[in-house]
C-alpha cells in the first residue's frame, strides 16, 4: 500500500525529474522503508514534489503571473460593475443590462486570453528549464 502511494507521489513530480530519478527512488524506497520508516519517506517525497514544482520548474513564475493577471481582471470587472451601478442609481431609467453583460463577457474573454498566455509561457519556461538542467561540461 505505502509503495503504491510512493509510486503515485513520484508520478506527481515534473516529467524530467521523474524520467531521470523515479526508478532509482522507488528502488531506494524498497530498500529503506523498513529502516527509515515508510511515512518519513512519503513525507520527504511529498515535500520534494512541492519543491520541484514550485522552485525548480519555474511554474511558480507562471502562477504568480496568473494571480497578478487575475487580480487585474477582477479589479477591472468589479470597478466597471461598481461604476455602472453608480450610474444606474443616478439614471434609473437607463437600460443597463446589455452593457453589464458586455462587461461580463469582456471579463471572461480577458480571463481566457490570460489563461492561454500563461499556459504558453509556462510551456516555454518548462522547455527552457529542461535545456538549462542538462549537465554542463566544466574544464
Amino acid at each position, binding site marked *: 500500500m505505502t509503495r503504491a502511494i510512493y509510486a503515485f507521489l513520484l508520478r506527481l513530480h515534473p516529467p524530467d525529474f521523474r524520467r531521470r530519478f523515479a526508478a532509482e527512488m522507488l528502488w531506494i524506497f524498497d530498500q529503506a522503508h523498513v529502516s527509515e520508516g515508510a511515512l518519513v519517506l512519503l513525507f520527504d*517525497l511529498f515535500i*520534494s514534489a512541492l519543491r520541484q514544482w514550485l522552485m525548480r520548474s519555474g511554474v511558480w513564475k507562471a502562477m504568480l503571473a496568473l494571480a497578478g493577471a487575475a487580480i487585474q481582471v477582477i479589479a477591472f470587472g468589479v470597478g466597471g460593475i461598481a461604476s455602472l451601478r453608480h450610474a444606474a442609481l443616478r439614471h434609473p431609467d437607463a437600460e443597463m443590462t446589455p452593457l453589464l453583460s458586455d462587461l461580463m463577457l469582456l471579463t471572461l474573454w480577458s480571463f481566457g486570453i490570460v489563461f492561454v498566455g500563461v499556459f504558453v509561457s509556462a510551456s516555454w519556461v518548462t522547455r527552457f528549464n529542461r535545456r538549462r*538542467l542538462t549537465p554542463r561540461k566544466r574544464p
Partner: protein
Amino acid sequence: MVEDLSPYLPLSAATLHVLLALAGEDRHGYGIMQEVARQSEGQYKLGPGTLYDNLQKMMSQGMVEEAPSPRDNDDPRRRYYRLTRFGRAVLAADVTRLEGVVRRARLDLRPASLRPAERRAK
C-alpha cells in the same frame, strides 16, 4: 585561472553532506544516504526526495556527475555519482569557510578571562 566560488557558498546542509559523502568514492543514491547518516553519526538523515532534488541541482551546476557502475552485473536501477573537480573545489572552499566559523566560535565561546585583552576592552 581561479574561479570565483562565492556564488555557491555557503552550501546548504544537504549539499554539504552529499558532497562530503562523494568525496571519498563514487556512490549510488542509497549509498549516499547511508554515508551521510554514518558521517553525521545518525544526526542528519537524507530522504530520497531531498537527496535527488539536491543531486539534480548539483548536476546542473556541474558539481556532481554520473559515474559508470563499478560492477558489471549491478542492478540497472542503481546509478552511481561522483564529484567533479569543480564540486571538489566548492567543497574545499566551504570547508575552509567553516573552519573560519569554528575558529571564531571557539574564540567567542571561551570564558571572558581567557579571551584576548583587546577583545575584552571593546
